[in-house]
């Protein structure tokens, strides 16, 4: 347990008080919107916009959720698509990124080339993805991959790879040379060193990459919407479907948003310890 708070007389309790207040305020600021969202999703139809406004529903209406489960709403197929896209993206990005990270951390590159590698990764990270949509669309058309999950997966991997590569590169750097040298003396080749030594030692890095990649892929909207037509729609597209030219369909949208939010929140809560651990492990030896 890191003690960065020195023991001071008198200040200790004030600090704890401040801390308690901050924690309460912070968690309320995060949780209240979701509670409100949930309340909205079970309100009868015309109560959102009633004058004066009502916060609590007069009676509980489950029809928005049940309509999500009907085959017409296609929500289940969106869910299925999202799961496939996110899992495939995560697996591919982490694997490819780990490989590349290992390579970059071992190669005898001049710092100039590494600078170029970092630069090209920046290029890809900070570009507004909008203008690349149409060229990418055309490319996918040439390969007959439009409206398939594959095209979305490839795009998602390409936007998450840079981060994974950099993260894993740093983790691999931290592995002591001695460990790898002794493995090689025992007769391991590069691939075996990678699989048996490097990967296991950098699991927090892999976990962190996986979590962050999954989040980005699950939530990505622009690319997925431009590539999907009938078969390849993912959940974020479903949320935006409730913004019509007539206005917003509050009920269904609340239910849909609530449904999208729940899986990713659970996922994060389960794996959140990796986020911190992965980010700090470099220093804790």
């Amino acid at each position: 347990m890191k003690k960065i708070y020195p023991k001071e007389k008198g200040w200790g309790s004030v600090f704890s008080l401040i801390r308690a207040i901050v924690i309460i305020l912070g968690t309320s600021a995060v949780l209240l919107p979701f509670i409100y969202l949930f309340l909205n999703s079970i309100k009868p139809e015309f109560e959102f916009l009633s004058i004066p406004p009502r916060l609590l529903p007069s009676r509980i209406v489950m029809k928005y959720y049940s309509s999500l489960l009907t085959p017409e709403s296609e929500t289940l197929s969106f869910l299925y698509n999202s799961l496939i896209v996110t899992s495939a993206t995560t697996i591919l990005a982490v694997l490819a990124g780990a490989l590349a990270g290992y390579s970059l951390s071992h190669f005898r590159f001049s710092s100039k080339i590494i600078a170029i590698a970092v630069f090209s990764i920046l290029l890809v990270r900070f570009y507004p993805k909008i203008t690349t949509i149409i060229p990418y669309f055309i490319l996918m058309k040439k390969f007959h991959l439009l409206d398939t999950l594959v095209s979305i997966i490839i795009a998602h991997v390409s936007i998450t790879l840079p981060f994974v590569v950099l993260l894993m590169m740093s983790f691999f750097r931290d592995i002591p040379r001695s460990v790898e040298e002794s493995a090689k003396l025992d007769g391991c080749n590069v691939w075996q060193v990678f699989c048996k030594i490097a990967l296991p030692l950098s699991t927090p890095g892999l976990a962190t990459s996986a979590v962050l990649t999954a989040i980005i892929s699950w939530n990505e909207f622009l690319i997925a919407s431009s590539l999907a037509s009938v078969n390849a729609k993912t959940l974020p597209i479903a949320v935006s479907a409730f913004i019509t030219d007539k206005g917003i369909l509050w009920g269904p949208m609340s239910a849909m948003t609530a449904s999208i939010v729940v899986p990713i929140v659970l996922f994060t809560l389960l794996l959140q310890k990796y986020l911190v651990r992965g980010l700090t492990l470099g220093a804790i030896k």
Partner: protein
Amino acid sequence: MENGQVEISTCPFFAMSVYRDKRKVKSSKFKQSESILLVLFLLPTFFFIVIAQFYPLLYSVYISFTKWSLVKWKPIGFIGLFNYQQVLQDTLFKHAAKISLLFACIATPVELIIGFLLAYMVIGERKIIRITRSILIIPMTIAPVAVGTMWRMLLNTRAGLVNYLLQGIGITGPNWLATPLTAFLSILMVDIWQWTPFAMIIFVAALSSLPPDLFSAAQIDGASRWQILRYIISPLIAPITILVILFRFIDSILVIDIIYTTTYGGPGFSTNVITFHIYKQALKYFNVTYAAAASWILQIFCLSVAIVLLAYSGKLQEKF
């Protein structure tokens, strides 16, 4: 890790600064064949990034230098920097750039400060602290589209939660999305709500990785909490702070999902940020050459900022 040396640079997330790392590049005694294998390791990444990123990027550069026929989907002629000129002279573009800069310059420091404060408060392994941390991370894991629609409901003048709560303490809430100033504040609020956790989690990682010996030493010397914060912690996390600034600054310039779902650029042009402006040009009006040129101008700007900040961060690290 060498004894006694504080190596924030090894904090994995900030591998960006790797190129500045003064430690020797690993000179492992890999044989020739192994070098080839290492190159093969790079192939999958190469494949993905080149196909899905470089090709479209180059394509859009190409488009940006042409007069392009939408119907035939091919260039009609090469007009050099004309599109860039047109973009830079467009008042709407300049206005959008101003809005974006203002937005980024306000959002980033706010997120930084609140993020740091929160991080300072939620270091530790006690159950409550860990649960709080988990809860506080949630906003940044939600799809921006979903966050936008959620906040649109929250900020509804009559039926929204925000005004409801304000009324509870006796303030009549404004028409958040209806006037230019409050609409701008609204998108700031949404961005801050969603991304402060990002700053927080980075600072948590950074603070957690500081060696405890430093503090014991300082405590023995009788330093107060405030002094420790100011003279020991701050300098040590300065490089990371710069990187957080970098990521948040540029990402807030690139913000679009929130705008799309809450204000749609209005009222008037008050929330017409640059990426949203480019989005409309590219995918609503299909002025592809304008959009391509505008994107690259934005790209050049972001890259310059990134390079400057990275260099500065690297310099700060060298001090250690």
